[in-house]
């Protein structure tokens, strides 16, 4: 079980890195808009107008 004395601190270190990465992402504005990205995936930017009369 003594491997835990090494693995748990390692896990906490990775956790710390994850938190740091998330803080950076929030700070750079990636999470400012939580609604549009869900919509954006279903939109095509290159639809041409239909052949209207």
């Amino acid at each position, binding site marked *: *079980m003594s491997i835990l004395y090494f693995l748990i601190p390692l896990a906490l270190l990775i956790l710390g890195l994850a938190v740091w990465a998330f803080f950076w992402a929030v700070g750079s504005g990636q*999470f400012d808009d939580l609604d549009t990205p869900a919509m954006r995936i279903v*939109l095509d930017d290159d639809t041409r*107008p*239909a052949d209207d009369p």
Partner: protein
Amino acid sequence: MSDAAACFHCALPVLDKRYTVSIDGLARAVCCPGCKAVAELIRDSGMSQYYALREAPEPGVGRPEDDAGEWEIFNRPDMLEAFGATTSGGKAEATIYVGGMYCTACSWLIETTLRAVPGVADADVNPVTHRLRTVIDTRQVGLGDVLATLARLGYHPQPLAPESSAAPEVIEQRTALKRLLVASLGMMQAMMFAVALYAGEFKGISADMERFLRLVSFFVTTPVVFYSARPFFAGAIRGIRSRHPGMDLPVAIAIGAAYAASVWSTFYDGPAVWYDSVTMFVFFLTVGRFLEMRARHRSIDKSVALTSILPNTVIRVEEDGEATVPATQLVAGDTVRIRAGEPIPADGRLLEGSTSVDEALLTGESRPLAKAPGDSLLAGSVNLDAQILLEVGNTGVDTTLGTISRLSERARYTRPGFVRVADRVASYIVVAILVVAVLVATGWSMVAPERAFEITLSVLVVTCPCALALATPAAFAAAGTRLAQLRLLVTNGDAVEAMSRATHVVFDKTGTLTRGLPRIAETRVFADDTDADTLTRIAAAIESASTHPLARAFGAIDTSFEATEVETVVGHGISGTVDGRHYRLGRSAYVAPGSSEAGTDDRPTVYIGDGETLLGVFVLDDEPRADAADTLTALRSMGLEVSLISGDRHAAVARTAEELGIDDFAAGCTPQDKLDHLKRLQAGGAVVVMVGDGINDAPILAGADASIAPAHSALLAQTSADVIMVGDLLRPVVTAVEIARHTLRIVRQNLAWAIGYNIVALPLAVAGLVPPWLAAIGMSASSLIVVLNALRLSRAGSTDRTVPA
């Protein structure tokens, strides 16, 4: 009028069937040339899918205004300095507030359209704050072109000065997200180590490993307590300082005590640690706060609310001619030229010209007011008839508009404090549980030290406050979602609770109980050779070309006549030829010089004549909303008192009150009068729900226990209201109160369940009859039941009033 088809673009009723646009191979009816142009622009840019993806529009949103020329001056370089920061290489970055956005498809449409404009390097819309950040190449395109593009799409853009660009909402949301993430990760880790400790209690664990796991839990919990839970501690300290301790205090005590006890246990080998309970408690509370904050941010941006009804640019009369300048550059003493139909940019004195103005938004007065040189004019009112010169007095926050805005902020600050009984009970129980746990631990260590830990553990787990902490937020979150589905946007969570306790509903008149649109109440015919119906249809044909507010009374009339040679005589009326005969519409002195006004008890009138004799008169009044009477009946049957407070004239208010059967009404009220009236009601123990739409309603909306504003209302009213009601009906007021009452029932059930469960489980656990694993199952099941019960709210309220397709 209600059976008319809705405009494909803006959802207003289609009155003139001449305009259609072909989208995806189908001809769609639109209401006006403006909507036709916008729909064609959207189609020709290959963005028709906007219509498939957007949420059902609120009628009138997205309808363009005829002000395209106004944007030209924003192309000047000095405008870029005032509204944008130029960076190297001719690139400039500007922030623009986009009014009229209502869903995420809008932000996609704006971004995609702008990026296709040559010279626009980047365009980003934040649908939460309605702000567009754009980077443009100033050598190819000007700020005015960007604004004009937005206006052509049917939005109402407003450039923002650079200093107001850093939106406090964005910073608040970022901080809240970080706090939420730290709390959730901390909770997961603490739970994981807690499971290991519980398992160790069963299977045996070495003292070293136990101490190690406790230490690790301490490391993951500490940021949760000192970072994620900081708002609770700050709130508690603020509460103590102001001698009004709120629910933050017991929460802070519970978190602080559990954490301190755990830390002591960790370093002095105490009986147990409570890190999992601490982190879970903080996490659930933080989730609740986060959801509440998101709902609040969906409401309207405060900083823009004040200025959005003022014009962006004005024509300033200077010594060497006239210049178009941004309205923000006006100072007292300037002279401004205001054309007919334009809003008045500042408080001031009428210098030249006589006109009438519409002050409905500011005062509730539904009738246009005549103004002569020397009279004072208010910023935010609309100049109706003629071109005038205004000497600027007060500008910006010093205007009457600004004063009302300040009044509403103060009213909001001093509104009755809500006692969140549920949360408070939950917090006190947390403290009680901790006390009991300590007593159990010491008690059992004296009787049977080898079982003390296990039993203390069971007591803590079985009585975990999760169900209690979830009882209220889960119900309010479910209620918020349900209300949003029914097109009621809740911006202040307290409102649901206040609405459930409501005893009085107070309505504003103009624009709330009534549509704020004139309707023909009575037609009098003076000539022998015609009848009321023919006259009305002739008038409708001529008035269809008019932009005067009173002309809208004729908008719904189906006319078979065609008017030619239509000419507007500013300040007097309109003339035109129908079937070879010349007609004049407007004031009596204009339609038939020498005639006298008919007695019409103060209601607005439109005369019709042929320039010599008077043919008839249309007496107009303000039409109550179609469902106003039904709504009031429903509210009364729910045991609520209904009253009417209006700034309009006594005669007009009394007429509406009589028509709708309201006994308690007050007329001619200033915003301060309205607020005083409200305070009197509240002093008598009433819990008041206010429904209003005007700027003059803002203070009373802010001061009421709960307030509802229609989505078409003035921005200032929307920022002061707790609930925004989308659509053209009053009925949602009833739905809101129904759901609020239902929510409180659910909260009571949840609390009863959670407390009952704890009362039964606690003695069993204290007696040592509940093993920790059973306690864990009991705790989870209890939380689950509370959440499932709250979710029943998602079907609450009648479903027949959901979003029309």
